[in-house]
């Protein structure tokens, strides 16, 4: 099974399946391929994760060297881009890449924040955990308004796979019967707090039938589920979860894959390119660099799943050149690396509430409220196509207000201890980004990463549709908070660069026509039948919902298809 070469244990050279990446979708590909009988190797670029020592969600601030302020000098030096993500703090910065080792370039006038996690589990360790199904409003959007190419699937094709994935990972939420945001397989919802309930009532009374407020739908367990423990409401999920209460591949899918005895997980394996067999017209394997020895290695398989994250997957495929595919594997359409989308965000409104001052919350709920998309659902908005959802939440200000509230001395201290202060409310939109072929990633001819692999040049900007939507987000967030009785309503539009939503997608889109798309309706490369790409790269449009649950459902669906095709010997 293993060969010893130069004293270094080598992985086997052949498997049934290779999965590139061990995060959100790589974990699902591994689980499904293993459970369906394939001997599978997962190549992960980053280090292994040991939950017992790597998870730090219960480490209090006073045990951190900088009390939570962060090791600023190290982070500014090594992670100048990653630090822009809220989760890249003193506890969790270790889950984000070193920007010096992992460079990328952008044109000066087009900044893009590429946030990455390279370790077993990938970004599923510190993701936002919000999960919302798509509907046919989304799958039909491209066909309806002509942006991008039509999706080759509809809601009915993915619905059973949403069920399948949700039942396994555990989703909490409230069924609402909305056509534009289908209900899922929900565990009991988390509670709204007093102010959020007021907002819900105010929105229902002023905009009933159009707008509504529901509790966030999250991949966090509100009761024990599939051997994992219910959430204990400690708060900072992005630091890990020793009770496995939120979904990550480390907490859920990778253990399931390992339990089959068919999984080989190989950390420190930086994939450089996919190998193409010109005679068989199939992908034959993967070339990777051992990150610790810097040695180049190859591994072969009958089927390859690329799940490295939308931009990383595009980079690997663009770097996989052959005489058949001089511009990147499966790129006959020229669409590989194009149509990059990321939800536009960082616009909304913040406010203060001074009612319910005799009420408080107990526990740290890692979730907020959600206003499902209401623009261009029943009516047509004059300024932009498509729409956005809104997330937000209320909490008592607590002692933190002491930093900017006038006062000092015994009474000041007693007040900060005893009084919780007003409620503060933040809200912000997550808007659909139109597919645009000019938003493109390509290989930078001059820059390479630490492992000698060409870096990406990211050339992406929001267009007028996204900018109009951001303006509207600030207005609607503010008017809803005002309707609920807020004071100090402060609308904002931070004019954020794309990337920071970390919902990048679209670089190898699905479509019906091989001339205009990279993947078919099964996430299978039109031109290379045993190559599947199931992360965000496959998306033909972005909708406005947080995308991970859709990636996961598409991955499980694609894996089932791949195994069936292998058994029919048609790959």
């Amino acid at each position, binding site marked *: 099974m293993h060969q010893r070469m130069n004293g270094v244990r080598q992985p086997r050279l052949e498997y049934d399946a290779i999965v590139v990446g061990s995060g959100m979708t790589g974990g699902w590909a591994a689980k499904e391929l293993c459970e369906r009988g394939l001997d599978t190797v997962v190549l992960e670029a980053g280090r292994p994760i040991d939950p017992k020592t790597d998870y730090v969600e219960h480490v209090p601030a006073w045990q951190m060297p*900088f009390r939570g302020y962060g090791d600023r*000098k190290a982070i500014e030096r090594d992670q100048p881009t990653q630090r822009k993500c809220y989760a890249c703090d003193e506890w969790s910065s270790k889950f984000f890449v070193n920007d010096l080792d992992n460079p990328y370039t952008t044109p000066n006038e087009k900044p893009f924040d590429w946030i990455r996690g390279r370790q077993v589990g990938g970004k599923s360790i510190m993701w936002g955990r919000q999960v919302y199904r798509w509907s046919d409003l989304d799958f039909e959007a491209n066909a309806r308004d002509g942006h991008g190419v039509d999706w080759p699937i509809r809601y009915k094709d993915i619905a059973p796979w949403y069920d399948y994935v949700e039942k396994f990972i555990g989703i909490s939420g409230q069924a609402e019967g909305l056509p534009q945001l289908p209900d899922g397989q929900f565990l009991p919802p988390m509670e709204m707090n007093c102010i959020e309930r007021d907002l819900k009532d105010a929105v229902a009374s002023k905009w009933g039938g159009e707008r509504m407020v529901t509790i966030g739908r999250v991949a966090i367990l509100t009761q024990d589920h599939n051997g994992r423990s219910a959430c204990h409401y400690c708060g900072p999920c992005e630091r890990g979860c020793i009770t496995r209460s939120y979904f990550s591949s480390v907490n859920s899918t990778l253990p399931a894959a390992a339990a089959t005895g068919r999984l080989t997980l190989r950390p420190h394996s930086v994939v450089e390119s996919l190998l193409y067999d010109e005679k068989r017209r199939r992908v034959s394997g993967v070339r990777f660099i051992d990150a610790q020895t810097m040695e180049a290695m190859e591994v072969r398989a009958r089927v390859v799943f690329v799940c490295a994250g939308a931009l990383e997957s595009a980079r690997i495929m663009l770097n996989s050149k052959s005489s058949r595919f001089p511009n990147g594997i499966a790129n006959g359409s020229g669409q590989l690396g194009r149509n990059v989308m990321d939800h536009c965000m960082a616009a909304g409104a913040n406010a203060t509430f001074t009612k319910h001052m005799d009420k408080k919350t107990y526990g740290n709920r890692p979730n907020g409220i959600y206003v499902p998309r209401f623009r261009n659902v029943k009516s047509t908005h004059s300024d932009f196509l498509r729409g956005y959802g809104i997330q937000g939440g209320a909490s008592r200000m607590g002692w933190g207000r002491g930093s900017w509230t006038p006062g000092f001395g015994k009474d*000041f201290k007693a007040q900060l201890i005893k009084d919780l202060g007003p409620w503060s409310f933040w809200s912000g939109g997550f808007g659909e980004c139109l597919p645009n072929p000019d938003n493109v990633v390509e290989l930078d001819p001059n820059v390479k990463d630490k492992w000698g692999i060409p870096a990406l040049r990211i050339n992406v900007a929001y267009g007028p549709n996204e900018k109009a939507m951001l303006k509207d987000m600030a207005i609607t967030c503010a008017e809803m908070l005002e309707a609920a009785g807020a004071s100090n309503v402060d609308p904002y539009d931070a004019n954020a660069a794309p990337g920071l939503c970390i919902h990048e997608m679209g670089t190898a889109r699905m479509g019906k026509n091989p001339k205009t798309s990279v993947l078919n309706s099964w996430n299978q490369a039109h031109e290379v039948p045993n190559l599947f790409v199931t992360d965000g790269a496959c998306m033909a449009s972005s909708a406005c919902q947080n995308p991970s649950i859709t990636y996961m459902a598409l991955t499980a669906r694609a894996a089932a298809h791949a195994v069936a095709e292998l058994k029919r010997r048609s790959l």
Partner: protein
Amino acid sequence: MNRRDLLHVVGGAVTLEALSALTPRRLLALGEEIHRTAAPRALESPPALIAAVAERILPESETPGAIAVGVPGFVEVIVHHWMTDEERERFEKGCAAMDAAATSRFKGDFANLTSDQQNTLIGEWDTARQRENGSAADAYARIKDMTVYGYFTSKPVVENILQLKRMPGRYNGCISV
């Protein structure tokens, strides 16, 4: 592939398997155990000025004061290991201005004044309309920010005064204070 080979190659997945074998109850118990943590930085001895200002902002009463819970040491870590050179110079210039104000008004360094004298100066800095870079009011605002944060994230205050639980075990959205 035999099990030993699997474990050898799998590396990180060894613990995944081990963890997945645990019951939810055992997982919860594991969560109660304190994680391994980095050792806090050795504290430098903080200047008397910072300790004195912090203690006036959050003084000893029926609850501990800023000095008792280690705020001055935290401020020192931030000033010397977190601030940029430019920020530290601005801060230290402001600290010097605080002592200069104490000397010109009450003929002594701030730390050696009486509580009333200290409170008089702090009252002015706390309500200052202008906070020019490097001024006494500027440095005071920075100390106040760090004092509040350092106080309310200290072990004695979190555990004994606020009585926050690391694992609350439930969420209630609207209960009486």
